[in-house]
């Protein structure tokens, strides 16, 4: 199940509980869902607790940082705390092993290391992350086809943030 599906499902279940539904079936195109609540549980209370609140309302993380960094561009992709909702199943995420600033090409104006559709070998340099004035080469940790670059040039990157999605070969 993908992140977005779980979110959709959460809303669905909360909606069903709110309306006192005990069982639920749906068959719509390729989507079929059948649900049945526990009789004693269905009316239960604390849907929301602080732990879940924290999970559902994560911090601005690297985006906020990026926004306040002059060098950073308006980031397109989400931080590690909120992985892209549209990731297809079966894709591998190349994540940042360090904190720093992302560069997709070896030098300003040069061609990017990789572009969507490229095939990369495990160990191939696919980006640079600048940290403490050092340029750290980031290698692909899997071989396969680059599907998407999830961050922008100059964007602030936190530990574990997905950089590329790759379809493993």
């Amino acid at each position, binding site marked *: 199940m993908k992140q977005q599906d779980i979110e959709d499902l959460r809303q669905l279940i909360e909606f069903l509980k709110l309306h006192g539904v005990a069982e639920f079936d749906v068959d719509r195109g390729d989507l079929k869902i059948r649900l049945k609540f526990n009789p004693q549980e269905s009316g239960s209370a604390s849907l929301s607790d602080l732990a879940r609140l924290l999970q559902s309302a994560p911090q601005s993380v690297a985006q906020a940082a990026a926004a306040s*960094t002059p060098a950073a561009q308006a980031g397109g992709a989400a931080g*590690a705390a909120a992985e892209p909702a549209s990731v297809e199943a079966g894709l591998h995420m190349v994540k940042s092993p360090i904190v720093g600033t992302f560069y997709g090409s070896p030098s300003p104006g040069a061609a990017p290391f990789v572009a969507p559709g490229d095939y990369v070998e495990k160990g191939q340099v696919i980006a640079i992350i600048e940290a403490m004035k050092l340029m750290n080469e980031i290698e692909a940790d899997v071989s396969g086809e680059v599907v998407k670059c999830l961050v922008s040039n100059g964007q602030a990157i936190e530990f574990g943030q997905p950089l590329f999605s790759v379809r493993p070969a």
Partner: protein
Amino acid sequence: MFRKVMVANRGEIALRVLNACRELGIRTVAVYSEADRNSLHVRFADEAICIGPPRAADSYLNVPAVISAAEIADVEAIHPGYGLLSENANFAEVCRASNIKFIGPPPEVTRLMGEKEKARQAMKKAKVPILPGSDGVLATAEEARAWAEKVGYPVILKAKAGGGGRGMRIVREAEDLPNLFHAAFTEAANAFGNGELYMEKYIERPRHIEFQVLADEHGNVASLFERECSIQRRHQKLIEEAPSLQVSAKMREEIGRTLTKCMGEIGYQNAGTVEFLMDSSRQLYFIEMNTRIQVEHPVTEAITGVDLVKAQLRIAAGEKLDAILPAKLEMRGHAIECRINAEHPQRFTPSAGKIAVFNVPGGNGVRVDTALYAEGVIPPYYDSLIAKLIAYGVDRAEAIAKMERALSQFIVQGIDTSIPLHEAIFKDAAFKAGEFDTGYVERFLERSPS
């Protein structure tokens, strides 16, 4: 004042510093490991950056990760809290090289105070009373005997190369010295391949007394009086209070004056704590200095009305002490702090896990510093402190009564906590009477088995 500050810490102290920043109008940046994603210090910061995996060495202690986070967040200063990188002079140097203000003393001072013998000498020079002992290695038992006469029995022989009790002997009388010297020498030589010994005065049943100092960056120093921290187990403080029943007004004033002068001489800056042992005749002996904010700083805040973390930030931003402190610094009332740890109250085994119930006491004179909450999780990677409970009253009796009341209303379920141990200590007549030393908790546990 700074526009934006990063807090390079976690848990209650991270939240404490974030609160101080926020109340001063400073934008805040938290850093966190993957284990702390749902922590309150992350939730309540303006920005938060994940800097590594759960292990502290890979995240909170990872200097490049912390500095990189500070750079991408574009902060002007870093507050290190306590523990972690707070007394790491290298980190302070990297901050300086990166044009980020480290909120604490300059790295040179941190380094000086980090080396025990150098710190002792610096204190001695400034007339701060230090623990008497041999100035270096003792070549023979005869030499040891001469020093012992000077220092006064009892003394303790310690291996220069050693630690962990090996090569260590307490000498109570002159006639025992030769045998004990040779036994210690042999043990040290066997254990460490080096039998060299030195000598210190041995304090029977010492108390742990510490003085809080603040120094600005313009040469002004103030002493914010003492804290009594003798209630500890294996050098981990459990209960702290201010003022100490053992420190007279005269001693407080004298030590304060000496420390003020001393800190000026060594060029100290920002908040610091000077730790002493006190012997049974109320003599103080310097043992070490902590060059950072202390866990137990709230008891000093309670009796002085000075916000020490705000003072740290304001000092680092260049403000002078006379703008930060009240015109007349004085003590009022009595404050006690309990460190509530996630650990078994008798076996002291750490208790990580998920908190099911978390009812925090409140009301008049009760302060709680915590970053935990119902359904919050205590990860197994870090220290076990989950909350600090501080009670303030007009006198020690009222502070104790408030603490007993508050402890009984501090309800935590899902994990073990030290609350039952604290409750037991507060019922103890010796504790109530102020009759304790650093061996108190061990003796207390022996006479009240689980």
